[in-house]
């Protein structure tokens, strides 16, 4: 009887062992997630206080021999009338705004004369693929030109160029004589400020 009992117990124990072995031990995994962000940012290079770029485009004598706006300044391109800057933007489509103010010399202009010179400001931006240009004509003080680039701003140097062209008076008629003086605030006159904003 005892033997029969022993055999039964042995079988039971073996079954228990089989059940335990069937619960296979699996790998255990622990994970560490690392998250971060890169804020959209446009930065002037080299870094400057206020993250601004600035400069002055000297146009020299604005009048021609007849006292009217010089014909060398009325064309769509003016040699040497540009400045380039380096801006780093890490966003895929930076947004641009461009505006400019009319130049003046703060002199009251009598009939037949003018102290106001309009022009077209132009902004050229080199992108990772190709380039884009924005323009703003000061006549009539329209709203700022705005838009977004189709591609990221190039990571190279001098990727932003500001230039001036198409100086004019009298709404483009160029019929008035320019009063003598310094035009543009940079020279002691008024206006002549081109404002550029590049945002990520």
């Amino acid at each position: 009887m005892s033997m029969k009992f022993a055999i039964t117990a042995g079988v039971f124990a073996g079954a228990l062992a089989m059940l335990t072995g069937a619960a296979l031990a699996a790998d255990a995994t622990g994970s560490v997630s690392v998250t971060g962000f890169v804020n959209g940012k446009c930065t002037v290079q080299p870094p400057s206080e206020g993250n601004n770029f600035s400069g002055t485009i000297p146009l020299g004598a604005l009048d021609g021999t007849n006292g009217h706006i010089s014909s060398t300044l009325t064309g769509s391109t003016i040699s040497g009338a540009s400045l380039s800057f380096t801006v780093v933007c890490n966003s895929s489509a930076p947004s641009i705004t461009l505006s400019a103010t009319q130049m003046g010399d703060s002199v009251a202009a009598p009939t037949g004369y003018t102290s106001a010179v309009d022009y077209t400001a132009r902004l050229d931006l080199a992108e990772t693929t190709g380039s884009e240009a924005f323009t703003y004509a000061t006549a009539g003080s329209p709203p700022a030109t705005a838009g977004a680039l189709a591609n990221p701003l190039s990571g190279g140097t001098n990727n932003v160029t500001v230039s001036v062209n198409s100086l004019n008076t009298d709404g483009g008629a160029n019929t008035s004589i320019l009063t003598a003086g310094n035009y543009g605030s940079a020279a002691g006159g008024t206006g002549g400020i081109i404002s550029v904003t590049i945002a990520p």
Partner: protein
Amino acid sequence: MNRLATGAIALLAVAVSNMASAAGSVMGSVGIDGTVADRCVFTSTNVVLNIGEMINTSGPSGSIGLLDPSRVNSQTAVLSGLCNGTSATMSVRAFPMLNTSFAATPPSGFSKRVDFTATAQVQTNSGVVSVSNDTVSAAASVPQTVGVFANDIDVSFSNAAAVNNALLIAGSYEGSVVVTLSPST
């Protein structure tokens, strides 16, 4: 003769009957056994490291917009685990930080990926066991034996770098490190 035989048999039967009643208790034994499976368990929850802004926002010209490696390399995490098998092993797999906001191919000069090396280290009865894996590798590190242990597993980071050291595209980035404890099989 038959009377003799009969008498003899009767005497034997009586002798046997007397022996059985003198035995008393019956003894039996029950054996029990069980098993403890080789097992590894993490006793801590998963860790999330938020490293914040990842690029240089100031400093020398030319470094603005580039990854600040120290943002990643300075990070550490602690996982707690245990294994009860003498042949248990530990391995680690690192996955790069990828921009989750920008799906397109980065333009020239830009990157949306940060690679790094992750190291998991634990003090065991046999000494310190360390495994490392970089995010460029196609597989986890070779498992190293940790044996029986119950301790903290320190995870650290190094060699963080953007692909081609390019400017990082703006957006959210996420990567991960997976530490695997494998029990004896």
